[in-house]
């Protein structure tokens, strides 16, 4: 099956981006899609929610070097496609995971090569033929900053994860405005998360003027998985959030070009 799913999961910190992104990545992989998960958060998150073992040092460190004028460039023989083929790591259900450098005790400086390689990779990824039938799914850090600085150039659809709270709704509106100012044609799928009452999802939809793709209930399984530091799919496979993500996968498959 040919699909055309280029997704960026965005929202306020704590809205549930990583849990939904990770569960979605594995759900789509189980349905037979090839999935590349892009983790552009310098703080830990997506790999834990995927249940993936990650190397202590980001593999992408080896992919970039400083060239003339001290500017970063890929090492010889590596471009965006090969960077993914060589430096992405395995996650459960066959998902491939490419990670940005993570902040260390010395800040971002020691992992700058990985950060630069990640940025060059996602910008060069574009319509690379090698990945034309892959699902590309990015998990962005909290807030609108990476959207403003073009950290999801591959995204044709934003999956907005929003709680029915004012901070979360205001954040989502900022992200939507910035994303549309950059590219008017970008699609939005609204996921209302941690829904407790009947009015929660419609309230968010009204505020953002977007239809609800999926409403995800408050779920004890997520809290328990987070406390255990485990992937939701492994920790609580029958939880309502897993079922809601199945519906999100249906929605995305239905919305993409086959």
């Amino acid at each position, binding site marked *: 099956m040919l699909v055309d799913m280029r997704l960026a999961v965005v929202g306020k910190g*704590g809205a549930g981006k990583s849990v939904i992104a990770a569960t979605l990545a594995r759900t789509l992989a189980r349905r037979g899609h090839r999935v590349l998960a892009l983790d552009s958060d310098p703080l830990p998150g997506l790999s834990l929610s995927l249940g993936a073992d990650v190397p202590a040092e980001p593999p992408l460190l080896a992919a970039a070097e400083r060239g003339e004028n001290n500017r970063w460039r890929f090492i010889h023989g590596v471009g965006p496609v090969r960077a993914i083929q060589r430096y992405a790591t395995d996650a459960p259900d066959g998902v491939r995971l490419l990670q940005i450098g993570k902040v260390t005790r010395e800040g971002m400086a020691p992992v700058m090569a990985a950060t630069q390689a990640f940025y060059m990779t996602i910008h060069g990824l574009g319509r690379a033929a090698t990945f034309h039938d892959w699902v590309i799914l990015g998990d962005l850090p909290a807030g609108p*900053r990476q959207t403003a600085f073009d950290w999801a150039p591959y995204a044709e659809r934003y999956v907005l994860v929003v709680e029915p709270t004012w901070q979360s709704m205001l954040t989502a509106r900022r992200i939507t405005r910035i994303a549309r*100012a950059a590219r008017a044609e970008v699609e939005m799928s609204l996921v209302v998360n941690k829904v407790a009452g009947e009015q929660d999802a419609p309230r968010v939809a009204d505020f953002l003027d977007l239809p609800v793709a999926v409403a995800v209930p408050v779920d004890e399984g997520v809290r328990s998985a987070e406390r255990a530091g485990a992937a939701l799919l492994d920790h609580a496979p029958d939880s309502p959030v897993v079922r809601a993500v199945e519906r999100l996968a249906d929605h995305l498959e239905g919305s993409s070009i086959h």
Partner: protein
Amino acid sequence: MKLAIAGKGGSGKTSISGTMARLLARGGQNVLAIDGDSNPNLALTLGIPAERMSAMPVLPPDLLRRTTEGAELTQSLDQIKASHSVSGPDGVQLLVMALPQHANTGCLCHMHATVRSIIDAVSEDGNDVCILDTEASPEHLSRGTAIYADAMLAIVEPYFKSLETGRRMAALANDLGLERVALVANKIRDERELEAVQAFAERHELELGGTVPFDAGFPGAEHAGLAPLDFAPDAPAIKAIDEIAHRWAGNGNGRA
């Protein structure tokens, strides 16, 4: 006292920052709250209604001038407060660092540097308090935004991602040379969760600077778009934050 509040997104940084600022102001201190998050929501938890937020002044870029000796503010702190702050309940004054409106608006490094200089300019008088609410990323540490803070509290929830984020931020703050860095346990539901945070703090040789219980009043306030202090003034979490605020930033008298 100049206090930076950090932590993972959703950990409760902004709710705690806003509530601390109000409670210290009620106790008679002069409180300057700085929203150093490029996704600014501090106004909400201070009790400034969402409707007013679209008209909120944001710090202009021309407050900082580069000189041969480094950077200096082009206006006095009083002038900056007079022209660019918003007054919130209990007399808290709020400065908002940035609100990116467009894609590719340019780097925020200059605005981080501006905030850094503003914090430096706040007096060290015990009656003056500056509360910096930070971004849900290590930006404020890697860019040194919080370098002139006296202390940083990293707000953590009792689960691994949140604790690990707090630990990394605490390590960066230590390296930045902040005098005191501590974790504050938030949304604690029972003894077991508190013990988990205590064990984590001990293992990484971090101070536990306070504990705030889980309190349904806080999500309630967020749903209603109100400051926790206005929505649930008698909530146990408010009492805990009051105690932490005065222990870390009080002037030694005039408890609220």
